[in-house]
């Protein structure tokens, strides 16, 4: 099944017959979709349906065994892995912050390219995710929700073309979940950021995304405007 959005902004990401099979086990099969600049796409499905496997293929943490992804029209096999991953920022279910301060974590991505992230930019990014004045805090003393918001800000520090969020609130309690969700919503709204959110939470998918894909056994079984797809 192919999903093409009706919005007419330039296409940032396009999956073409994307698939991955490992030892005869199909993880992702023949996935086709495209996402325009500023669009927010939710990928939903039950546990083990292949949502995370699909997201890992999008920023090439795993290698597809078929198909490809076009990033701004360029086949991602022709883009250097490090540059591709900078363009497609990723936030994982667990935040995995590096030891040190919040600012150290935000500086990590740009430092890989030899850039020094100015303190003002760090403060701006932290304000966007509701963590004003957190830059000097030790990451060891953060709550789960705060750590996940730092993880979002850290991905944004790389100025990505699109943000891939993998179950960003699944490991959090209800209060922290709302904090992270509203921080993500604010970033999407303020920056007009292109996003893909993987979530098993249908209500969350409906709140965050305009478009949605439902994945089962690694295949897209429903696709279209979030309101319609998630109601079905």
């Amino acid at each position, binding site marked *: 099944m192919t999903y093409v959005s009706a919005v007419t902004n330039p296409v940032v990401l396009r999956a073409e017959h994307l698939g991955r099979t490992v030892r005869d086990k199909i993880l992702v099969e023949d996935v086709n979709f495209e996402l325009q600049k500023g669009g927010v796409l939710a990928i939903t499905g039950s546990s083990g349906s292949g949502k995370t496997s699909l997201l890992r293929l999008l920023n*090439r943490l795993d290698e597809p065994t078929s198909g490809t992804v076009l990033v701004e029209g360029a086949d991602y096999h022709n883009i250097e*892995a490090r540059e591709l991953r900078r363009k497609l920022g990723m936030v994982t279910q667990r935040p995995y912050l590096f030891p040190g301060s919040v600012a150290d974590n935000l500086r990590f991505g740009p430092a890989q390219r030899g850039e020094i992230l100015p303190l003002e930019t760090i403060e701006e990014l932290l304000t966007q995710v509701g963590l004003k004045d957190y830059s000097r805090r030790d990451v060891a003393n953060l709550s789960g929700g705060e750590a996940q918001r730092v993880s979002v800000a850290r991905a944004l520090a790389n100025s990505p073309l699109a943000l891939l969020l993998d179950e960003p609130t699944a490991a959090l309690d209800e209060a922290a979940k709302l904090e992270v969700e509203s921080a993500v919503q604010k970033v999407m709204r303020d920056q007009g950021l292109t996003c893909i959110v993987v979530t098993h939470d249908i209500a969350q998918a409906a709140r965050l995304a305009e478009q949605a894909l439902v994945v089962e056994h690694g295949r897209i079984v429903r696709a279209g405007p979030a309101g319609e797809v998630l109601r079905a």
Partner: protein
Amino acid sequence: MLRLFFHSQLQLGFAQALVAALSTLLVVVLARRRGIHLESETLIAMVRGLVQIIAVGSILLILLHAPRWTSGILLAGMIVAAGATSARRAKGMPDAFQVSSCAIALGAGSIIALMTSLGVIDTAITSLVPVGSMLIANAMNTNSLALNRFRSDVLAHAGEIETALALGAEARNSVSPYVQASFEASLIPAIDSLRSLGIVWIPGLMAGMLLSGARPVYAAIYQFVVLAMIFASSGLTSLVSTMLIRGRVFSPAEQLLLQPGR
């Protein structure tokens, strides 16, 4: 007590080996009570070790009068065997045998060559092979420790490594903390041996030299020489092995190949 019953040196040797082997049985029984099964691995390792050391002893006896270059062949064979043994500790790691053999050859081999050429190790086959084998065996243990630790750390921190990759880090840099930890951990036995020399233990080589009539001070100094060479060859081996393996846990597209449950 055994000497009362066994008068031939060979019989006494086998009796001593049997008694020593029985003491390992105690460890196996104690481990079994805690649900850890070491029976087959311990039995195979002991039988193998005994057969191998008798075989090497017999070969040394034959080679006593052989030309000196034959010790080079013997040591090269030992390096390959050490590489194969060590690689088994790095289950699931790509090219573990090549990495281990190469690291031991460069680590132990270069120190043996250098020390022999400088006259620190005597070129006589009866000296070069036993001392060389000590360096190779210790390099093998260090390599096993380094690879085993690296493997465990990468598996335990796959999330952190992939987070670094996802933020645009170079693959080799994303595992740097685990490379360093593996290198340091692998050298603990060599450092402790050097540190406790003469206080906690008096190694067999020194005892042997004393028994064969060497002056005690020279025997003691030479023991230090051997341990310093062991440290140098082990350190070099671990350095080479961790340097070689760090890039091999990634695909050409900088994807982490070593993953839990894969």
